[in-house]
Structure formats: C-alpha cells, structure tokens
C-alpha cells in the first residue's frame, strides 16, 4: 500500500460574506514534492492555504494531512495539532526574538538546545546569524529564517504564502533557488501559492492552476505549459497565439498553412464541422527571409527583452489576426520588414466555441 498522501483536499468550499471563494476544490500533493498553486491575485489561493493550516474554518469539503482528516463536516483540528508549517508572505519573524529563538520556537524546550536549531540554520546557510534580530536581516535572509522556523518541528507539510512577493525583483530569483534547494535537501513536502506563472513553472514539481475557486488543471510544469486544457488557461500560463482553423485527421488548415496537431487535452473533441481554435506558443513561430510559398507578413512592432524579443506580425492573409513571434534577442527583425512565417512543432486544437 502506498504511504498516505501528505495533503489531500476534496470538495473544499469557503465563502466570505456570501461571496464564494472556494467552490469544490480538489487537490492532491505528492510526497516530497513542491507543488505550486497558481492563480491571479484575489482568486482564493491564500484562503486555501489558511484553510489547510487551520486558521479558517471551511464551509464544506475534506482536508487530510498525512492520511489524517483534519477538516470535514464534523472535524476542525486546531492549527497547533495539524503538523503543518506555515511561511507567511513577509516572513513574519517574531521581532522580539533573535534568529535562533525564532527557529527554535516550535521545538519542545528540551530540543531547543539539541543542535536542531544549528542544523536548520546551516541548512538555510545562516549559521553565523543565530544571535541577530529580524530587523538586522535582509528580506531574503528573513524569508530563509522563516522557512527554517517552519521546518524545525519536521512537519509533514510546509505551506508557503507568496513567499517571494515582498522581495525585490533582483533578489527574488536567488532566494527562490535557495528555498528550492533547502526544501529538496530537507525532503519536506511543500505547497506554495503564487500569482507569478514564471515562478510557478520554474520552481515547482507540480503546478495547479486555480480558477473560479477550483483547480482548473494540475500537472508538471512542462505538460501544463504545453497542453493547457483550454485557451483561457493557455493565455494565463504565457503568451499564446490563437488562430481559427479546420481540423482534419492529424492536422489543421489555418492561415499559417497546414499545421500538425497533437490531441485535444480537454478531451471534448472538435465540433462536427471540424472548426477548431489552434493554439501555438510564440516561440514556435519563426521569422525568416521572405520565401515564396510560405505565409507572409509585415512586422508591426517589436518588444525587446534582452535575451529574447517578440514581434507583432500582421499576415498578408486578411482573415488572420495579428500574431506574435518570439525571436532570440540578436535576431530581432526590424519594424516594417517583410518576413516569412514558419511554424515549428505541433499545434494544439481546441474545439471552437
């Protein structure tokens, strides 16, 4: 038999003042993974975390932590009895305690001197900061201490509430990598919420996208980015080029020519007349020297990001909307330039609405 899942949520619902925030949400978190819940601001991600931690009471549904039901119709296990660590948005270190005392806060008195605190400080790379106070640390250091504090009692699950949101953009990537490494090394199972799709995709083993109070899709980052269940999700996870087309056996006819398709992840199948919406990622669309026999277009505008760039292209075929292509930064076409458009890889076909 498999060991019980560190976190299993089913049918969870919660409303604030009659405004539903969670509506029958289901989520499984695999042992030892870092799972990210991704959703726009105000979609109820934080509420989900607070329900799992036990800070709020659910209106309905079940939460099990490590196979034990901590929340259902009849049960509400107090936060202190759940064995769930929590890292708040701004770290929320106790300002009246030094770093060591913060990390040792959740340990029984006897264990505070057992070396566990030092062990954790080493894990987060702050051994020399034990006697510092929170206000003497940088934001990234505070966040690492908060993580060490949450990990100290060795909880079955650690929750992280937008832990990098309060950090400077320049620091964020570094702290992210550090936190990722610490979580891996400690072997802890972690659930993180974020509104930053880049953060979720680059950090997590599993990304669960939240929409309308439920999980729209949960998958590993690559599959999620490649095969989102619908066009809306595709756009939320990154830039998407959407074209109308007509589906044949394994390809579709579109303004960009005949495109090979892979299955429809929504499983609904195309409508009977074969009309579909084709989804491509801008990086699948390449700009080339104009060649006869390929779709042509004119570059309307470009946006330069350094490592890469995007170009808005208006196709000569008037039935087609403008499309976006991504190019390496050093191969950026000029505005007004005529280009040929070539598609790489397969396209995703959603049934047309």
């Amino acid at each position, binding site marked *: 038999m498999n060991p019980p899942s560190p976190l299993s949520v089913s049918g969870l619902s919660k409303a*604030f*003042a009659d405004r539903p925030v969670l509506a029958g949400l289901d989520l499984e978190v695999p042992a030892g993974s870092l799972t990210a819940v991704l959703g726009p601001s105000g979609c109820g991600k934080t509420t989900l975390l*607070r329900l799992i*931690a*036990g*800070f*709020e*009471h659910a209106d309905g549904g079940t939460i099990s932590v490590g196979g034990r039901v901590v929340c259902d119709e009849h049960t509400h296990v*107090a*936060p*202190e*009895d*759940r064995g*769930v*660590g*929590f890292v*708040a948005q*701004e770290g*929320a270190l*106790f*300002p*009246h305690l030094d770093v060591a005392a913060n990390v040792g*806060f*959740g340990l029984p008195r006897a264990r505070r001197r057992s070396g566990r605190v030092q062990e954790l400080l080493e894990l987060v790379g702050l051994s020399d900061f034990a006697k510092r106070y*929170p*206000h*003497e*640390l*940088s*934001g*990234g250091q*505070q966040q690492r201490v908060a993580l060490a*504090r*949450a990990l*100290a*009692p060795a909880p079955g699950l650690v929750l992280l509430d937008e832990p990098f949101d*309060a*950090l*400077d953009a320049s*620091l964020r990537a570094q702290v992210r990598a550090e936190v990722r490494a610490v979580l891996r090394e400690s072997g802890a199972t972690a659930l993180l919420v974020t509104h930053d799709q880049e953060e979720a995709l680059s950090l997590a083993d599993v990304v669960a996208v939240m929409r309308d109070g439920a999980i729209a899709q949960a998958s590993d980052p690559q599959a999620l980015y490649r095969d989102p269940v619908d066009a809306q999700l595709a756009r939320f996870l990154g830039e998407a080029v959407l074209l109308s087309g007509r589906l044949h056996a394994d390809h579709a006819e579109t303004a960009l020519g005949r495109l090979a398709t892979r299955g429809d992840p929504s499983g609904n199948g195309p409508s009977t007349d074969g009309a579909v919406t084709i989804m491509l990622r801008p990086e699948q669309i390449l700009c080339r020297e104009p060649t006869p026999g390929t779709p042509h277009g004119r570059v309307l505008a470009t946006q330069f990001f350094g490592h890469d760039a995007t170009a808005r292209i208006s196709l000569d075929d008037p039935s087609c909307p403008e499309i976006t292509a991504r190019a390496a930064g050093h191969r950026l076409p000029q505005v007004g330039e005529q280009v040929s458009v070539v598609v790489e890889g397969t396209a995703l076909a959603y049934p047309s609405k």
Partner: protein
Amino acid sequence: MEAARAHAPRPAWSANRWRARLRGRSTPLALLAVAAAVALLVLLPLGFLMEQALSIGISQVDALVFRPLVGTLLLNTVLLVLVATSACTALGVAVAWCVERTDLPGRRAWAVLAALPITVPAFVTSYGWVSITPAVQGFGGAALIVTLAYYPLVYLPVAAVLRGMDPALEETARSLGMGPWRTFLRVTLPQTRLALLGGALLVAVHLLSEFGAFAMLRFQTFTTAIYDEYRLSFDGPAASMLATVLVLLCLVLLLAELAARGRARYARVDTGAPRPPARAQLGRTRWLAGGGLALLSGLALGLPLVTLVYWLLHGGSTSFPVATLLSTAGTSLKLGLGAAILTTLLALPVSILTVRYPSRIATVLERAAYLPYALPGIVIALSLIVASVHYLPTIYDTTQLLIVAYAILSLPLALVATRAALAQAPPVHEEIARSLGCSPLQALVRVTLPRILPGLGAAAALVFLATVTELTATLLLAPIGTQTLATQFWADASTRAFGAAAPYAGLMVAISAFPTYLLTRRLGAILGPREAR
C-alpha cells in the same frame, strides 16, 4: 535595519485586510464571557442607580426634577459647557496653528508648554487662582479657569493633524489663487474638523464631570449639587435623581461623540507627511503671537504652579506635615498601582475580543466598556455606593470598592491604549505560532504579549495618572480613615487653608509628572515622526 526596510516595499498588513480576514472567525467563548463580565461591571451599578432614582415614585420624581434648583443647575451647566467649550476650541486651534504652522521662534518649547496644563488637575488650578483672589468665584471665573485647564484637549489632536497634513493640499490651494487666510479657512481648518470636534466633545464631557474646580470656585453645577445632596443632606434618592438627569446630558454628548468617531476612522490622517509643510511667515506679528502664548502659559501653568510654590514656602499655617504627607502619598501610590493593574487586566480581554474577533457583539461590549468615558466620576461613585449598600454591603466602605470605581472610571483610557497596541501586533504572528504547535493562550503569551508590553505599560501609566489626581470618586468612596493626597488636599483647600493644602498638591503634581513624561514620549511615537527642526 536598512536592508529590512529596503526589501519590504509593501506595508506588512493593511487594516482592511485584517478586518476582512478576522470577521467571521469563531470567538472563543471564555474570552467572550470575560469581556461580557467587564461590560456588566460597568453597566450594573448604573442600572442600580436608575432603579433607585425611579423607585421613589412618580410624584416624588416630579417634585425632585421639576424644581427651581434643577432649572438653575441646568442653566448653569449648559451655559458653562457652551461658553468654555467654545473658548477651548478657539484657543486650542489658535495655539496649534501658531506652534505647528508658523515660524514662531521657540515653537518646540511652546509645543510642550502649551500641552502641560493638562497635567495639572483643574481643582489645583482653581486652588491657585482662588488663593490669590476671590474675584474668580462665579460664572466668569469658572469659565476662565476651566478653559485654561482644558484647552489642551483641543490643542493636542488638532496639532497632531496639522503636523501630519500633506503640504500639497495647502500649496495647491495657494496655486489656485487663494490667499493665506482663505486657504486656512477653506483647506486647513476643514481637515482638522474631526480632531477639533473630537477635542471639543472631550472638553464638554470633562466639564460635565468636573467637580473639584467648580466646588472650589463656588459655582454650582450638577456635580456639586449631587455632592451636596449626598454628603451634606445624606439624601440618596435626590442625589440619584440629579445624577440621572446628568447622565441624560452625558448621553447626548456620547451620541455626538460616537457619530464623530464613526467618521473619524475613515478620515484619519496617516502618520508622517512626505515632507514638512511650509510655515507661515509671521513677520512682526510673531512678537504678538509669542506674547500671547507667554500670557497663556503664564495663566494656565505659571500661575497655579507659582502660587503652589508660594504656599509651599510661606504656608505658615502649619509646620510641614512630613508624616501625613508620606502616609497619604503612600496611600495614593498604592491605590494608583492597584487601579493600574486591575484596569489593564480588565481592558485586555475586551481589546483582544474587539481587535482579534470583531463581531457585532464585540462592538456592543466595547461600547459598554467605553461608557464611563462620558460619565462623571461622581455618578459612577454614587452608583457604586447604591449598588454596594443595597446588594453587597460587605464591600461598602472598602478599599476594594474604591479601586473598582477607579477601574470603571479609567477603563476607557486603558482600552484605547491596549487596543492601539494590539492593532499594531499583526495576527499573522499568532497564526505562525499556532502552526508551530502553540495553543491560542500560549501564542498570546509567547508572541503577542512581548509585543504589546509597552502598550500595556502605557495603559497602566494612563490609569495611574488618572487615579492619583482623581478627587470626586475618592471623596465619596474612600473608606473611613483612608486619606489620599487628593482628599487631604481637598480637606485643607476647601476650608481655605491654602498653605496646609500646598504640599499635597505639589506631591500630586510631582507624582503624576513621571507617567505624563513617559506618555508624551510615547504619544510622540504614535503621532508619527516629528519634523526635523
């Protein structure tokens, strides 16, 4: 320090987010029960007072209420409240503007001096005046002296708003073609409206409650009449009836106050303006303004203190009563400490309930606990006497009852301070503590308490200050043989033994100076960083 600030671009927790999160959390029943008990402690004695006032029958009520004396009292009280409140408001705004918004020389010193009269009890100020001239007795003198004693209640909040005001508003008005005077009337003054209204109401409440100053100045109001009925004629029902009329007057003010406070919450000026506002150039009139402030400080602060020192040095009527002085001071300190501890302990659960578990019932309980704020000490003392004599005779005439009276009287002060402290301690810390295995009580003790300790200290200091200078309730409730600095002072001063009274007043002012010092420092921190001068 710098690093932490640099990486926290957003305010940690906004009040609105807290409130949204906290609403609807299940309230611990034990906490609710304790807070309800505190509210009951405040309300029950008042209930007994009303009961006694009404138990004497309609014809008696008629005879006691509709008589010339009540008419005189009503006229005296209302007229004095109107005149002195207006004067305090005008004076408070003028001083605040001079100190905060002009280039007046020495304004930092004036800012402190202008606030100081609040630390001298009004009955000591009256004593100072009466001891040099009997001419201040009567309406005019009473109005003058209470204005001098209470104008800081308007000055302090208005000055705080002026200090924190965004200078861009005034600059915009000027750029739109308004002159300085019109800018003040149409832009500056409206912004202070809520602080001004709150301060004026506070003055009115204090005036309705004031007993010592009016008794000293032989000016008859409800409070002095209640005291006379009770102390001199031992007429319980008559005193209760007058007290009931006074309570009704207070309720009118309380309703006005609640209305003002309800709006004040949204209009509160954030701490710290982006840069110090430009100051009006007074030019030659600054000597006039400086002279006016000097005169004010001389009358409000200098005169009472100088007369006090004069009587200390030239008392003559008795030799310096060291033994009595020490024993009364000891009693005052003990009572003050007892009241400070009890009141803070009573205020804490109510504040925790309202800050951490906001709900309709929490609001009702908190409002009840705030009620004594608008009730004269003499009413609360009288109601405790009625309640204890009729229902719990064993505690009548005990120190415990006196301390309970102090606690009820100063509960609003302690609530304000503990509430502010709790609101600054984010609940996320308690939640983290819970997720690390603490029970709610452990989380409170290990995380929240260390954070709010300074706030609790401020609450205790406020209560101590109010208790040491409290006169009315002490006169009515001090057990036989218990003399405090205030009652000993009163015994001498009311028989015009000015020299004999001086040492007690001096010691009272000295003792209350220390917590005042602590509080003004804390108040500075609360009101936001002072501009660099």
